[in-house]
């Protein structure tokens, strides 16, 4: 029972509570709406420009209208494919070591190194790749760009592989061993497949992360007005083109930058959504 003496204070506290809590709701709305704002602008400005030319033509000479980003699209695809080939095996097998074979000391060191790599600014990784793969060989290349991106994929893949392998139930492993499988065979045929979804999710997330990276490519893959044959030549890529075109004064280039931005963001978001769905479906599948 409230006495009239405590009522005003209580009223104040209650209204404060209501106000503050609704403010937190506002914060959440703001946070979520940022994403839709970004998407909205990209669709608005870039939507019309994502046409057939954009996907099929090479860039036009400076100041002339038209042209597209076909070489940048392919360049990004090649970079990502090679980056995965470099980064995923290291992360995956390293994660297997940590989860299955690793001792305490070695495990700590490897995890620490992975954290170090994860926290390294991407521009610093670009400097490293430049010093290692561009200077000694005397050319910019798709390979050096993919190497930089691949390094960035390692920590995420490593930690997730370890985590999901550890999460595989003990009885699954023991069952395999009881049936006479060696440790490595058990890992390969039983444990890894069980953790497959989680690992795939991590790989996809890592891929999405590096798909948008620009800074390390500036000194490794450089850029290219033409198609980039093989792996040893500089290559155009979507993020670098967006950057170059956005800071230019040409309206036509701005239009193309929006279109490329839309494509890039679309790609990144699709990969993210797919990755999470893979994980969700896996969890649901196991429960049923």
């Amino acid at each position, binding site marked *: 029972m409230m006495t009239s003496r405590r009522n005003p204070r209580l009223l104040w506290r209650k209204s404060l509570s209501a106000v503050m809590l609704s403010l*937190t709701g506002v914060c959440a709305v703001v946070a979520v709406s940022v994403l839709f704002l970004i998407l909205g602008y990209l669709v608005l400005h870039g939507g019309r420009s994502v046409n057939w030319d954009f996907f099929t033509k090479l860039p036009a000479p400076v100041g002339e209208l038209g042209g597209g980003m076909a070489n940048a699209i392919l360049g990004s695809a090649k970079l990502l494919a090679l980056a995965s080939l470099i980064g995923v095996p290291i992360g995956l097998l390293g994660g297997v070591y940590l989860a*299955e074979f690793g001792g305490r000391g070695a495990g700590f060191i490897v995890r620490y190194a992975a954290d170090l790599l994860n926290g*390294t*600014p991407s521009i610093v990784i670009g*400097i490293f790749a430049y010093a290692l793969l561009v200077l000694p060989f005397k050319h910019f290349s798709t390979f050096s760009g993919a190497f930089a991106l691949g390094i960035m994929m390692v920590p995420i893949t490593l930690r997730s592989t370890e985590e999901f392998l550890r999460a595989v139930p003990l009885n699954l492993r023991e069952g395999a061993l009881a049936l006479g499988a060696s440790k490595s*065979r058990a*890992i390969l045929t039983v444990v890894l497949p069980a953790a497959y979804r989680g690992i795939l999710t991590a790989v996809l997330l890592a891929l999405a992360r590096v798909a948008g990276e*620009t800074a390390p490519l500036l000194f490794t893959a450089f850029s290219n007005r033409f198609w980039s044959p093989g792996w040893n030549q500089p290559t155009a890529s979507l993020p670098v083109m*967006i950057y170059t075109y956005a800071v230019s004064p040409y309206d036509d280039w701005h239009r193309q930058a929006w279109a490329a931005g839309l494509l890039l963001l679309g790609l990144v978001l699709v990969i993210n959504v797919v990755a999470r769905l893979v994980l969700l479906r896996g969890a649901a599948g196991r429960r049923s």
Partner: protein
Amino acid sequence: MRGAGSSLSPRSLFSRLCQGDEIARLITLLFAASVVLIALAIVYQLWVDSALSRHRFGLHFLVTSVWDPVFEQFGALPFIYGTLLTSAVALLLAVPLGIGAAIFLAELAPQRISAVCTFFIELLAAVPSVIYGLLGVFVLVPLMRQDVQPFLKNTLGFLPLFSGPAYGVGFLTAGIVLALMILPFIISVSREVLLSVPRDQREAALALGSTRWESTWRVVVPFARTGIFGSIFLALARALGETMAVTMVIGNTPQIAASLFAPGYTIAAVIANEFTEATSDLYLHALIELGLVLFLLTFILNGMARLLILLTERKGAEVRA
């Protein structure tokens, strides 16, 4: 059974080898070791390739504010200042917003809404830096120049913080873009730590007669305090290394200015702009030394962040036990 022994006798070693276990162990060890190798190589390369600059300037490098390629005088101070200032602005904007949203999502929102919102916010974390830069250049900068900065100048212009010409680009704009970029990290990590606070803490507070807000703000959040700080450190570490979005909206001018409207520079931005063209070796080494400074900063912050998050989760487990 063959190979069952764990001793190092030649026979059991050989049989283990035959079964592929030892090979598997060695192969995976090799790959795990390569991670360590790469990390060490990066540190080594940063150290060695900044030698000229380190020897020439010593520790003065960190406190000199001149960046003069013609007369070969290089100092890191304007870049450290710019990096820290933009990150500070970003935190000032993102932390209240982020914690507020995290509180909403962890405490108030129904499960479904919370899950959906968190999903979208985590998607926001995936948006590449160059896209933020694109929006920064074409949307935010004109907005700042035409509306926000004049408004601030008219209302708060007496403060040195909001003085000077309104370019549109500058510390404030870069800080705002960074705030948007680190927001998802603060929200998702804070939400996790808030969710890990044991239920009875909340219930005890409510039982004692506190309002919903009071129980959240005075009991739950302080309990998760270390974890939330961890998320802030993590976000800060991310903000320090951001390159593309910042370089497109900060104005690219190495200077230390009191006003938030002034153009500035950050470590990551100057490296991105000047690395491929450093015309002398000393210049290049100075840039790499900047990279080393940045690396150390993020390294320390990341370490503190992980420690704090770990401490919170352990605390939660202790109380529950």
